[in-house]
C-alpha cells in the first residue's frame, strides 16, 4: 500500500481557520506540494497578505514576512533582492493586489522582480466580510454593493482582469490563470505554479499565477454551489490559461517540441 496523495511536508498539519470549502486551503496545499517536489522548503520565504490568509504563517513550514495590506509586492521586492537564491512567494488576495496594492503589483511586475505572485481571486473581500473587490463581477452582490456591482449607475467600475493588465508591462514574463473549483482545474493550476516557481529559480522575470478561488461564506453559498458558480460565472469572464509566457524555458520547450 503506497501513499500516493499524502500531506505535503512543508504544510503543517494544523486545522486551518478557513471556512469549509474555502479555496485558500487548496492553494496552500498546491504551493507546498510544488515546494516539496522542488526540494526548496528550507529556501522558501512567503509573504502573507492582509486578508483571510493572514494566518498562513501558522500553516506553512518555512519563513514568512508580513507587510501591510496590499504592499506584499514591495515587501517581496525587498526580500528577493536580498535573497536572490531563495524561492520568494508573494501571496495576495484580490483586494490586496488589485485595489490598495495596484501600484505595487504593477511596478513589481514592470521591474521584472524575480518572485512569484500567487494571486487568489475570489471576487470578494473575504476577511473583512464580503465587500466588493476590484474583481467582483457585474451584478454580484457585496456589502458595499448591496444591489449588485453597478458600473454605470453607481460608478462602481468593472471587474479588472489583472493578468491582461499586467500583460502590457515589459517585466512580466509568465502570467497564468487557473482555478481550484474541480480536480482538473486544480491539477492544471499546480502545473502553472510549478512553471512559475521554476522560472523564478532560474532567475527569469516576474511570474504570477492568478487562481480563481471560491469564498462560499461571503458569496452566501454552500461550498458545492460555490465551485459551480466559479465554473458558470467566473470562468466565462476570467478565461483560464497562460495569458503571457515569455519564459526562456518555454521558448526552449517550444523549440524542442518542434524538433
Amino acid at each position, binding site marked *: *500500500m*503506497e*501513499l*500516493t*496523495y*499524502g*500531506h*505535503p511536508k512543508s*504544510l503543517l*498539519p494544523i*486545522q*486551518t481557520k*478557513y*471556512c*469549509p*470549502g*474555502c*479555496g*485558500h*486551503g*487548496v492553494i496552500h*496545499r498546491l504551493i507546498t506540494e510544488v515546494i516539496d517536489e522542488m526540494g526548496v522548503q528550507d529556501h522558501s520565504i512567503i509573504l502573507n497578505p492582509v486578508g483571510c490568509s493572514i494566518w498562513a504563517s501558522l500553516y506553512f513550514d518555512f519563513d514568512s514576512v508580513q507587510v501591510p495590506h496590499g504592499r506584499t509586492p514591495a515587501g517581496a521586492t525587498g526580500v528577493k533582492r536580498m535573497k536572490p537564491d531563495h524561492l520568494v512567494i508573494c501571496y495576495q488576495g484580490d483586494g490586496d493586489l488589485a485595489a490598495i496594492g495596484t501600484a505595487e503589483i504593477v511596478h513589481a511586475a514592470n521591474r521584472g522582480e524575480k518572485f512569484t505572485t500567487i494571486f487568489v481571486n475570489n471576487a470578494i473581500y473575504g476577511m473583512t466580510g464580503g465587500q466588493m473587490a476590484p474583481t467582483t463581477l457585474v451584478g454580484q452582490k457585496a456589502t458595499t454593493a448591496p444591489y449588485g456591482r453597478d458600473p454605470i449607475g453607481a460608478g462602481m467600475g468593472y471587474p479588472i482582469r489583472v493578468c491582461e493588465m499586467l500583460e502590457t508591462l515589459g517585466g512580466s514574463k509568465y502570467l497564468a490563470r487557473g482555478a*481550484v473549483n*474541480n*480536480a482538473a482545474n*486544480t*491539477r492544471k493550476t499546480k502545473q502553472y505554479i510549478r512553471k512559475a516557481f521554476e522560472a523564478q529559480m532560474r532567475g527569469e522575470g516576474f511570474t504570477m499565477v492568478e487562481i480563481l478561488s471560491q469564498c*462560499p461564506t461571503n458569496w452566501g453559498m*454552500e*461550498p*458545492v454551489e460555490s*465551485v459551480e458558480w466559479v465554473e458558470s460565472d467566473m470562468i466565462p469572464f476570467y478565461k483560464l490559461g497562460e495569458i503571457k509566457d515569455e519564459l526562456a524555458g518555454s521558448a526552449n520547450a517550444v523549440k524542442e517540441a518542434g524538433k
Partner: protein
Amino acid sequence: MAIKGKPVVDRERCKGCLLCVRACPTKVLAADVEPNSWGYYPVKVVAEDKCIACGNCYTVCPDVAITVYKL
C-alpha cells in the same frame, strides 16, 4: 487490472464541505451524520471498494483531510 485505492478521511480535519463527494468519480464518499468535535459533519468512506485511487478527493480538499493510498 483496474487500479484500486483506499481513501483515508481525517474526521477531525474535515470540515464537511462535500467538495470531495462532488469530485469523486465513483461515489466512494458521503457525508456522515455524526458531527466531529468542532461541530462539522465530516465525510466518510461509504464504498471503499469502488476507489480507483484517482486522487480527485485529495486534490479538491481544502483541508488536506483525505489522503489516498494505492493498493
